[in-house]
């Protein structure tokens, strides 16, 4: 790891240490009785330690480590999405193609640095292949709905998430060999925006911003979280190829997209009658609960950087 990465991870570690101390202190003050909000906060902080450790170890292995990490992330996200999606028996071939063909292929294309196919593989080829496979089953019940669900799951869980490691393939003049930091910046800004929206919402939140979709999101949380996270993104410009003001604007963009992603993914959960996508991350829910904002922010960020910087 280069010096900037070490500083970054040291900073994150210090932040988590502070959060852990605050969490323990709150727990001590609230007494021995279980307090759902504080207990959930502490579970979230503990899970953050694990997530930062996993990402940090992937970074130690360099590009391949990060590509493999996001392959696993996509796998867990796709599995959560497809589990909640009511497919029928004749969707089996399409689901096999999604899990065992599209998913590995998308990450292989990143590892091979084949941008031309990476960008259209799922939106064009899989978009056509999946309904073909589904039609061979001969079952027309809710056909369009089923075809759309599998396609949507692949776009969100595989295509969108794979835009994060795809940042490694960009050749940015003057930034050679440091693309891992660009990934760190994106993940950090989007996730810290989620955290700060949660914190600002818990501290100052009164007006619900989307009561039908996500009852816990408030206007105060949204404004405070996005503004603070964009400021942090701007202050971290030294690990990116951007100038201070560019970093601020890009951080604002990914934070707004991340917020919108949270709303869209919440709408799907409400429709399916569940509160969380899964249960693999203690306190947070499933993989998609943690990554809904990244899903929407990453592809747009990737293409912005590719268009203006690479």
């Amino acid at each position, binding site marked *: 790891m280069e010096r900037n990465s070490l500083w970054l991870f040291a900073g994150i570690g210090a932040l988590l240490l502070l959060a852990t101390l605050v969490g323990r202190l709150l727990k001590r003050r609230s007494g021995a009785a279980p307090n759902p909000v504080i207990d959930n906060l502490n579970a979230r902080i503990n899970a953050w330690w694990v997530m930062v450790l996993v990402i940090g170890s992937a970074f130690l292995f360099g590009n391949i480590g990060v590509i493999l990490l996001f392959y696993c992330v996509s*796998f867990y996200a796709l*599995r*959560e999405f*497809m*589990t909640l999606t*009511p*497919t029928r*028996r004749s969707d*089996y071939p399409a*689901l*096999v193609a999604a*899990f*065992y063909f599209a998913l590995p292929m998308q990450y292989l294309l990143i590892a091979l640095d084949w941008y031309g196919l990476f960008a259209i593989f799922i939106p064009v080829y899989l978009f056509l292949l999946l309904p073909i496979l589904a039609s061979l089953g001969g079952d027309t019940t809710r056909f369009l709905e089923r075809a759309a669900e599998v396609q949507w799951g692949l776009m969100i869980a595989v295509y969108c998430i794979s835009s994060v490691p795809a940042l490694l393939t960009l050749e940015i003049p003057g930034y050679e060999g440091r693309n891992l930091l660009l990934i760190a910046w994106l993940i950090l800004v989007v996730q810290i925006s989620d955290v700060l929206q949660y914190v600002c919402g818990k501290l100052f939140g009164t007006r619900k911003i989307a009561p039908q979709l996500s009852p816990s999101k408030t206007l105060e949380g949204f404004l405070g979280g996005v503004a603070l996270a964009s400021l942090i993104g701007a202050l971290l410009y030294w690990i990116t190829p951007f100038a201070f003001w560019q970093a601020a604007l890009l951080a604002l963009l990914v934070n707004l997209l991340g917020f919108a992603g949270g709303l869209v993914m919440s709408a799907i959960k409400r*429709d*399916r*009658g569940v509160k969380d996508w*899964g*249960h*693999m991350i203690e306190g947070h829910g499933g993989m998609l609960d943690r990554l809904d904002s990244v899903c929407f922010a990453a592809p747009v960020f990737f293409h912005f950087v590719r268009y203006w910087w690479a």
Partner: protein
Amino acid sequence: MLASLAAFAITSGARLLTGARALWLGCTAQPVQRLYFANHSSHGDFVLLWASLPAELRRSTRPVAGADYWLTGSVRRYLIQRVFNAVLVDRQRASPDSNPLQPMLDALDRGDSLILFPEGTRNLEAGLLPFKSGLYHLARTRPGVELIPVWIANLNRVMPKGRALPLPLLCTLSFGAPLAYLEEEGKAAFLERARNALLALAPEEI
């Protein structure tokens, strides 16, 4: 040694593939003698139920399986007898005067717990088939055994009938409250009550 290694590999594989989550809703995982009865939609049902039990319960819990299917072929025979330590029942009733429940009664008398699929065969549709009467006779003659309904959700999507490659979707196992055997209740009423208790654990279709 080989058998316990195989058991470890199979249960870990099943849990990894399905992310099996056991929800102990009506009871807790305790070492008391039990008869787990579950819905049956896939050959993997008993493996997953068995795998989702804590290790100390797994040792004394034996699946009930059809001898006609499992005794054909040496791999199947090894798996069912040595790895899963199953209670094999004769579904075809070769000799008319033999009691097909006898192997299960013997196992219960030895103190083992059982995993039973009272539908008798795999059900590929939603819901449950009518229950076979074996569950009733076991409950009546061995009233000390706790009857626990277990709903296995999603495994039919993981391993659809006739497909070789499983899909890595998430499965949930809901363990319900023990079902009491009531003296005055008849066979049909008991089986209907048991079936409803199991159906009540199924997630609502949206």
